[in-house]
């Protein structure tokens, strides 16, 4: 079972590349049990949405 430290790394990586099957499994198992990382994952998506909007000059 991976820890939050590794999970946060995989969440970040997933924003830049497709995760391998093994990585996906490890991450989703962790997310099922970890509210903090679930929130972190959502925050990353929120940050990206705003950054893309800001970055395009909107």
């Amino acid at each position: 079972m991976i820890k939050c430290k590794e999970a946060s790394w995989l969440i970040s990586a997933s924003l830049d590349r497709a995760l391998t099957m093994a990585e996906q499994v490890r991450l989703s198992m962790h997310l099922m049990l970890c509210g903090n990382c679930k929130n972190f994952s959502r925050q990353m998506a929120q940050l990206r949405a705003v950054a893309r909007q800001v970055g395009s000059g909107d």
Partner: protein
Amino acid sequence: MLTPEMIEAERPYLMRYALAQLRDKGAADEAVQETLLAALESAGSFSGKSSVRTWLTSILRFKLIDTIRREKKEVLVESFDDEVSDDEFADLFFAQDGHWREPVRSWGAPEATLIAREFWDVFERCSQAMPRRTAMAFVLRELQGMDIAEICKALDVTATNCSVMLYRARMSLRECFEIGWLGGAKA
């Protein structure tokens, strides 16, 4: 009809954008100046489909990439030696057992609105604490939407370095937003 005044009015916004990415007043000035000149020259091609700001930003983005390519040699000199190790970085956020030191809150609609409104302020402040190349990688990836291969090429780093920089930038920026809000509004 696009007037020089309308273009000039966007200078402060463009300056902010350029400064956030280049962190060098002279280079940012130059990129913005070139952008405004290019815009004036091609004002006739402005379709009016997008806002003036969006149009100018798209020109500026190309100028910024040009600037980074030109600067690559100088940026390269800045080594990774003065940056903290992976373990040191992780220690800032995670306890020895690999769990978060602080609980990660859920950001709702109010926070989403705040991020949008405060993005530049927070990013400017926050990126001062990041190595220059890390801040650049973040802007290229998240603001400009470049893919990893392009970023590696523009900054002359390996894909692994690129992932590390983006991870650190995201972790730091998230923390900056959290600290900002908790500092002001902790119940």
